[in-house]
């Protein structure tokens, strides 16, 4: 049975259509991440799932029950907010038990649940404090505790980590992931941070302009982005997208900057290549930066699945773990990832290897992935 089904949900605020027909289904125990730039409608969608807003059309189904017209409190969900939304006048204890109090859960049961949750999140020492007396990370934990204590059918997270500093964010990310694994609940998590999406999700729904651009597992989203938007949104640095022309006979060859003196020709793998109809047409190549490395890298593959080329180096960015190189391929700026000890001379030319198996082709007209 699906834990959550969103079916044909539409929402409009005044003249603006915020959600243009959303369909998503999550299996029980899944960790679904809704990711997209701000204004893409992901928070509105989450609010609709929570029952805080009503869709103009479509249905929401939780654990097999249509809840579109059911108020939030009867949906058996819990939610963690970006600002944590802790009740400022209540203690941590009261904050956590408020939901049970509203539902008339007996005091003893409340105390047990509270103790369990507090232990789980290691916030036993904070129970008598007011939210104003807590640090950012502690508030975050309390907000989590408020959600966890109720053992709901569905957890909703609305950018819960975006108010934390970088270090804490990484820690909490891990914790939430472990938590998910431990309790095995279904979670829907909204973020604009694609790293969070990649690291935590079992499936990612990439949203843009009120529509789901792609709904798939992280690998697929990353390696086979459904369209140029997803390609450019996911990954840091994002996927390089350069215009090219497909030529060649048996094995297709992509030509970047055709006709220029520095034109680049990449021979693509035969299998999984574009349909024959695409020969001699313009396409957009999508190349992940990590598919471009210093010459000699084999990408763990057989000879022939990668090409070697020479390109002018415009800038290098050593990050410690690797070096990002900005180069030009056929006149187009492209980023590559080379080993940390490789330091190409800026202004000179260097040789690079390209993993052609990982090149994606997009239709420049529809921006959709070809094949």
């Amino acid at each position, binding site marked *: 049975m699906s834990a959550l089904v969103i079916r044909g949900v539409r929402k409009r605020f005044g003249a603006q259509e915020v959600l243009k027909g959303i*369909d998503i*289904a999550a299996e029980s125990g899944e960790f679904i991440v809704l990711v997209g730039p701000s204004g893409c409608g992901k928070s509105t969608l989450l609010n609709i799932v929570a029952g805080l807003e009503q869709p103009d059309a479509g*249905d929401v*189904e939780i654990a097999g029950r249509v809840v579109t017209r*059911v108020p939030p409190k009867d949906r058996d969900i819990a939610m963690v907010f970006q600002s944590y939304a802790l009740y400022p006048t209540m203690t941590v204890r009261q904050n956590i038990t408020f939901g049970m109090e509203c539902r008339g859960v007996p005091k003893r049961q409340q105390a047990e649940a509270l103790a369990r949750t507090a232990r789980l999140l290691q916030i036993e020492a904070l129970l008598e404090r007011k939210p104003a007396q807590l640090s950012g990370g502690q508030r975050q934990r309390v907000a989590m505790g408020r959600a966890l204590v109720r053992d709901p059918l569905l957890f909703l997270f609305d950018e819960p980590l975006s108010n934390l500093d970088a270090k804490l964010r990484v820690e909490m990310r891990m914790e939430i992931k472990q938590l998910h694994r431990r309790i095995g609940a279904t979670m829907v998590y909204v973020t604009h941070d694609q790293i969070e999406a990649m690291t935590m999700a079992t499936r990612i*729904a990439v949203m843009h302009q009120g529509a789901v651009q792609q*709904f798939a597992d992280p690998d697929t989203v990353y390696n086979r982005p*459904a369209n140029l938007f997803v390609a450019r949104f996911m990954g840091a640095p994002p996927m390089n997208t350069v215009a090219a022309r497909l030529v060649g006979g048996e094995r297709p060859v992509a030509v970047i900057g055709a006709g220029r003196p520095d034109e680049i020709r990449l021979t693509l793998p035969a299998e999984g290549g574009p349909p024959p109809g695409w020969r001699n047409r313009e396409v957009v190549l999508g190349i992940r930066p990590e598919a471009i490395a210093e010459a000699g890298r084999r990408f763990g593959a057989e000879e022939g699945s990668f090409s070697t080329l020479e390109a002018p180096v415009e800038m290098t960015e050593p990050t410690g773990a690797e070096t990002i190189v900005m180069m030009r391929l056929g006149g187009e700026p492209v980023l590559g990832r080379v080993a940390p000890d490789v330091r190409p001379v800026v202004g000179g030319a260097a040789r690079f290897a390209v993993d052609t198996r990982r090149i994606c082709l997009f239709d420049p007209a529809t921006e959709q992935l070809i094949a």
Partner: protein
Amino acid sequence: MPAGTAAVAGVPPLARPAPARWRGWLGRLAPHLVLWPPLLVSVLHVVSFTAYTTWISFTPSTLLPEYDWVGVQNYVSVLNSRNWKIAYSNLVIYGCGFVLLTTALGLLLAVLIDQRIRAENLFRTIFLYPMAVSFVVTGTVWAWLLNPGIGIQHLVRGFGWAGFRFDWLVDREMAIYTIVIAGAWQASGFAMALFLAGIRSVDADLYRAAQIDGAGPWRIYRRVVLPCIGPIFIAVLVILLQFAIKTFDLVRALTGGGPGLATQLPTLVVYDLMFQRGLLGRGAAAAVMLLLSLLVVLLPYFAYARWRKRREARHG
């Protein structure tokens, strides 16, 4: 752009809807039972009283309401009366003078008090207390203080400055400004409180930034703080304007509309027509015209508020 195809494929068929529960229905109704009565009462009170007054303004009512129709006759005679003309032009002078002076005083006091002075509490209370006392009382005292024969002029001359003159109260041209002074005395503390509240809620980082930019305290106020509290200016202006339009006790206690008719205000005319002269219909006509003038002030404000909301919505 089509939605991801994978999603559509994964969506199972519709499940059966949850059964409606009467308890849920009642639970949803209960808030409305509480939400609406007080709202309706206050809305009804505004709408019906205004409508009633408008109706009366078209009737020949004198001592008691009567319900015949006389058209715009009451409006014509009010508009033609000297009293109303004087009162209305006074309202413009007084309204502008009062609002400007009160705003300026309030702002000045707020800035001064914001200097982290000692005894802030004491000063604030001194400036606020006039709000706490009825004008029925303080108006009389102001009438003494402003009276040249017994008040400030008399006292200053007593100190030896024989040529000192401050006789606005008895000067037909200037008397309306004494009302402005007394009005500002009462309301400027409130303006001060609002401004002070505004100044104190400006983000401290802004001060730091301005300081690093090399701005002195007064420049910080002028260029950084005051622009930040623009909305408070609007709130203060609106509150003061409604004070100005409703001013009644003050004039009644201070000048009684005199000398002559020099300090008549529309509210006095309304009250005088309705209750002193027993011309309810005519008084109602004057009240309706007063309300219309209120709209002249309020409509731009609402338009501004709407515009601001739109703008915020666009940027949010």
